[in-house]
């Protein structure tokens, strides 16, 4: 066993930290407030090849894996710039295209995604099918040699900054189980028949969420990704990267929170000594640090399992995502507490991260669905739903 990052991983971490430090949380906060995007940060990461570290070199990637992509994601979040779209575009969409795309599809979509010039959104959630993807109602019907897509998706992140959306749709019903047979489609955001309406959420982040109305949207045959009807299994391949990235955003926020809290507790003094010398301040912070480091350890293991096709990759990714979301919220809560009244001040850049940290307990996969997974797969308990 070797817990050390490789020299390349250390260099990557340092390099990303430097790039992200050039932006920092005040940049993020300001962009979020103005309703603006973080295009400069995204392009800076893309130009340096950091958004495609996990993609094959043939398509402009770095030829490494999720261990490297989670390093990038955590480091940017640790600088106070959690990028939700890193979870969607490089981690889910590009991974699925690299895995199931035709040569043409890979050549078309992967290089611009690796360089950051193209973002791709991901649409699976529906008003009547959230945690239960078997109930997806958005349907793609055969039309000529292509497809026609109709249905509604909601809470789809980043449609306003994406060039395309990877849509999960029903293309039939499995005759044996009666469940939806799903397929994946790459849809241009400016396609006729696609309308997006903004869903306001209380998350201070530059990414926005949308309801997507798909109305007899025509697709050419080359927009089907992978095998018709095999979408459920294919989406599964994107779930572990998604969980790893959810965990990485969370541990990044956790690091940011604890670094700020520790620095503040060393400096701030109200009884003649730094508040960090009061155990009531020090112990909860030390506890939060321990939980965070445990989650980070699980995250590196989970990324390793994924990159090495280990049989426990799914379990590890779920556990890492659960632990990271809990640890990050706890760390942020404690950091706010350590800052007293300042913890709520915009200037201190903590409270505004609450929405993002809290989101990671619900999305991309909820805490309960992870507990279901662990109960059923790790403990062999009966499925409850």
């Amino acid at each position: 066993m070797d817990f050390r990052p490789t020299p390349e991983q250390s260099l990557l971490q340092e390099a990303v930290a430097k790039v992200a430090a050039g932006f920092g949380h005040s940049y993020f906060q300001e962009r979020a407030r103005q309703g603006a995007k973080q295009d400069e940060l995204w392009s800076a990461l893309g130009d340096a090849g950091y958004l495609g570290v996990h993609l094959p070199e043939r398509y402009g990637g770095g030829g490494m894996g999720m261990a490297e992509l989670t390093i990038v994601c955590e480091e940017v979040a640790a600088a106070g710039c959690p990028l939700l779209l890193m979870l969607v575009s490089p981690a889910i969409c590009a991974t699925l295209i690299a895995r199931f795309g035709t040569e043409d599809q890979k050549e078309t979509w992967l290089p611009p995604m690796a360089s950051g010039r193209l973002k791709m959104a991901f649409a699976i959630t529906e008003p009547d099918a959230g945690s239960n993807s078997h109930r997806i109602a958005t349907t793609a019907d055969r039309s000529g040699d292509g497809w026609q897509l109709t249905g509604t998706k909601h809470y789809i992140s980043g449609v306003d900054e994406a060039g395309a959306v990877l849509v999960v749709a029903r293309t039939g019903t499995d005759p044996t189980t009666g469940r939806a047979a799903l397929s994946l489609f790459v849809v241009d955001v400016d396609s006729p028949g696609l309308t997006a309406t903004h869903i306001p959420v209380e998350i201070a982040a530059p990414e926005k969420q949308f309801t997507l109305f798909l109305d007899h949207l025509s697709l050419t045959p080359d927009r089907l990704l992978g095998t018709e009807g095999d979408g459920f299994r294919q989406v599964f391949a994107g779930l572990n990267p998604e969980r790893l990235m959810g965990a990485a955003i969370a541990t990044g926020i956790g690091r940011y929170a604890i670094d700020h809290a520790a620095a503040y507790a060393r400096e701030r003094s109200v009884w003649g000594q730094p508040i960090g010398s009061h155990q009531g301040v020090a112990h909860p912070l030390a506890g939060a640090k321990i939980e965070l480091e445990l989650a980070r350890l699980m995250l590196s293991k989970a990324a390793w399992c994924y990159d090495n096709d280990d049989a426990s990759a799914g379990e590890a990714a779920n556990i890492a995502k659960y632990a990271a979301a809990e640890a990050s919220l706890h760390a942020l809560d404690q950091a706010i507490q350590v800052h007293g009244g300042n913890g709520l001040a915009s200037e201190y850049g903590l409270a505004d991260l609450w929405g993002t940290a809290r989101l990671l307990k619900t999305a991309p996969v909820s805490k309960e669905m992870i507990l279901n997974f662990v109960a059923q797969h790790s403990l062999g308990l009966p499925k409850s739903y």
Partner: protein
Amino acid sequence: MCPKLSFLPRVGQVPCISGTIRDMNVAVCVKQIPDPAGELSLDPSTHNLVREGKLVLDDSDSYGVEMALQLVESAGGGDVTLVSMAPNGETSGLRTALAMGATAAVLISDAALAGSDALGTARVLAAAIRRFQPDLVLAATESTDGYTGTTPVQLAELLGWPSVTFAKHVELGEGLVKVRRQTEAGYDEVECPLPAVVTVTAGVVEPRYPSFKGIMAARSKPLDELTIADLGIDPSQLGAAGARQEVVSVEDAAARQSGEIVVDEGDAHERVVAFLERIKVL
């Protein structure tokens, strides 16, 4: 607030070149130092900076590395070779510079170098540089941790080459280097025959971030580790034994007086002017 970041040399920043120079070989002195963002401490008996943990590329030297890369790119070919003296076989800072694009690195690490002063360091760097005879040596004006700013000029003296310090712009000519040298009043334009040693100031160029491709490529770049025996230098001239400088005692810097806050009640400009006159700035 929009941070200024640039990954490509801006127009006008690329050193232009007159005449034809092929294969420009540049050596860059690269100091690896304890991470300035971390906890730093002095050895209580020798008063030397404790250099036991991981060392990083001194930010000051990232400008020299970038400058060298740009000069070689503009010359149309050549090598950028890093030269560093550091304890414990440390290579982290060199790897960062290799990932930025340098061709190769030479590390001199030897227990006998412990306690070296700037002259001892210059001796070691000179011996290493003589082995591959570059056209130009770049160093920073001063390091971030020791900042005596004396190593590069001593190095030039030992090599018997001219040196130009405080460069804020560097350009290659035929067999020479043209430097805008920062002065208190503005800058001097200096031309100097090659080979030469030039020290660059921070901000002379915008150092690039190592791209992921650069990071992966650095894996297979040559990194030679040499001892003082390899360099054939007399050990009595090096390390603590050869040091002519000894740190006798160390004191905490005097705590700064807290400043005076001028609250604007309509007369702030007058009070600021009065203050500047009092300290004889105006």
